[in-house]
């Protein structure tokens, strides 16, 4: 199954009731999958919206009434969705947003890239907020993380972003779905369903009183602190004796893994840290690894975005190098291997 369709199937099995999309390459298979499979399910809705703006605001509406809802797009479309994502975050509404990132800025190329890391992990839209960002690197993880995204969104009442790329979306791999789609669709408590037998509810963010907005921000950030404590995930690969650790996420991490296997075959002690949550970032783990390893190489398909989080996490207690290619040009494993090997000898790690 291709990655985009795997997200669709996983979403349906996670009880996603509404999908609102707008075509943009390279995520169209997801929109098409939902058109074919979600719309016909009882109580479910698929709409091809008139724009990304409309799509994210339909998600907002569905979330207001307590349904599990999602949308997907690629970089330029995600920029348009940022308005709605900011409102979702401010209104403390769950939603799942998929970004099959492409090379930018502007229209850029439709090839795989990781150039939206900053946008994804720094909130993305206006105002002081964060979204949980999951970074899968296989079709299986696209499916698993989609399910997790819905759960996290409901648990913390916040939008959750899945940051993939064109290659992950397009590639085919075996995938196993671990859940059956629920018969009865859940309605989240606290949703607007009409004020029957209870005081009327208001979902809003605007306030004429700045103190109210400050209180909202405090409450958001208390929750963000909790998320940082509870929800950080990552994968490590051969780090125990590593003298050099490659930090990479998503598809770049797979390329790096291939390179690391080859490096190990030539006797280089190289390992990898792969964050699977980009926000919250596994800063603690980076610091932990720095107790034994002083050299870090950040490899990204951009000009260096996650490297800032690695540097911040290290607090100067390790040396960070960077290798990356922007604009949708994807490095091959042997190219990364060359970079690893050169750095390894440059730093005298063979001794």
């Amino acid at each position, binding site marked *: 199954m291709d990655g985009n369709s795997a997200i669709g199937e996983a979403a349906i099995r996670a009880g996603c009731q509404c999908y609102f999309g707008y075509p943009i390459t390279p995520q169209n298979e997801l929109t098409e999958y939902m058109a074919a499979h979600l719309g016909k399910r009882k109580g479910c809705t698929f709409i091809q919206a008139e724009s990304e*703006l409309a799509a994210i605001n339909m998600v*907002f*509406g569905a979330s207001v009434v307590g349904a599990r*809802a999602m949308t997907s797009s690629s970089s330029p479309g995600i920029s348009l969705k940022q308005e709605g994502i900011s409102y979702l975050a401010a209104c403390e509404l769950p939603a799942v947003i998929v970004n099959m990132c492409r090379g930018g800025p502007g229209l850029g190329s439709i090839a795989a890239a990781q150039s939206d890391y900053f946008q994804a992990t720094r909130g993305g839209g206006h105002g002081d907020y964060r979204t949980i960002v999951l970074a899968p690197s296989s079709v299986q993880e696209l499916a698993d993380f989609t399910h997790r995204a819905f759960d996290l969104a409901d648990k913390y009442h916040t939008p959750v972003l899945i940051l993939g790329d064109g290659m992950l979306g397009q590639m085919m791999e075996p995938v196993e779905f671990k859940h059956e789609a629920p018969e009865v669709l859940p309605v989240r408590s606290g949703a*607007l*369903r009409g004020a029957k037998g209870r005081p*009327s*509810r208001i979902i809003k963010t605007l306030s004429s009183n700045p103190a109210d907005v400050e209180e909202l921000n405090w409450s958001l950030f208390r929750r963000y602190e909790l998320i940082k404590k509870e929800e950080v995930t990552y994968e490590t690969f051969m780090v125990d004796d590593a003298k050099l650790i490659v930090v990479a996420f998503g598809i770049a991490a797979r390329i790096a893994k291939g390179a690391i296997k080859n490096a190990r075959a030539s006797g280089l002690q190289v390992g990898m840290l792969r964050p699977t949550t980009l926000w919250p970032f596994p800063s603690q783990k980076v610091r932990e690894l720095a107790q034994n390893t002083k050299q870090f190489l950040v490899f990204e398909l951009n000009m260096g975005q996650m490297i800032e989080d690695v540097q911040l996490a290290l607090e100067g207690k390790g040396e960070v190098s960077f290798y990356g290619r922007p604009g949708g040009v994807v490095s091959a494993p042997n190219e990364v291997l060359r970079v690893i090997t050169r750095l390894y000898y440059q730093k005298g790690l063979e001794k």
Partner: protein
Amino acid sequence: MKTVYTHPKYLKKVPFHYCPGCGHSVIHRLIAELIDEMNIHDRVLGIPPCGCSVFAYNYLDIDMTEAAHGRGAAVATGMKRAFPEAIVFSYQGDGDLAAIGTAETIHAANRGENITVISVNNAVYGMTGGQMAPTTLLDQWTTTTPYGRDAKTAGHPVKMCELVAVLDGSVYVERTAVDSPANIRKAKKAIQKGFQVQMDNLGFSLVEVLSPCPVNWKMTPVESWEWIEKEMEKVFPLGIIKDTTGKKDAD
């Protein structure tokens, strides 16, 4: 002793923040009366707009959610699709409906979304201080048309009712006004019909209400009510623009 008129049940007992003579509070009141009379309080969901009436939720005692400027029809779409038993209305200003949210409005109408859009047209951006709206009349003074709206540079007033009416998905479109007791009663009846169309699952309904903004028009309240009749209604004619519901009013 018989009470002829008293405070509607679902209008909170708080003073309005609107300027003297404003039409918003009149329209709020009509909606509150209808929710009671139509017995739909249990399942009605409202979306206030950006602008002065963003605080409609401070007055209407019903479940309401904010929406980003212009996105009312999209949010309403999501709500209604995920919760079809609800009666969903968006309350949108002219800028909300006919400028930033034109696409959302047109496409919700075109899909025949089973929602009701109540559009308040006062030919000006009220809350931001009286700038030109898409519905500003030609030659009308606003803070961004200080020499009057010139069609050559600023275009023409946008007539959303007529635009929406040509779409196959819309079933009921009416323009009314807050400028006289008779027209206020007609506005109420139009909104009632809009809700009824939705309850009967017939499709998209739009009720536009011409509404006074005395402060930004630089008029007294009474002058502003008169100006609607004299000037606005020439450009925005009142009446049913489209009704394909096949149902006539009870009277």
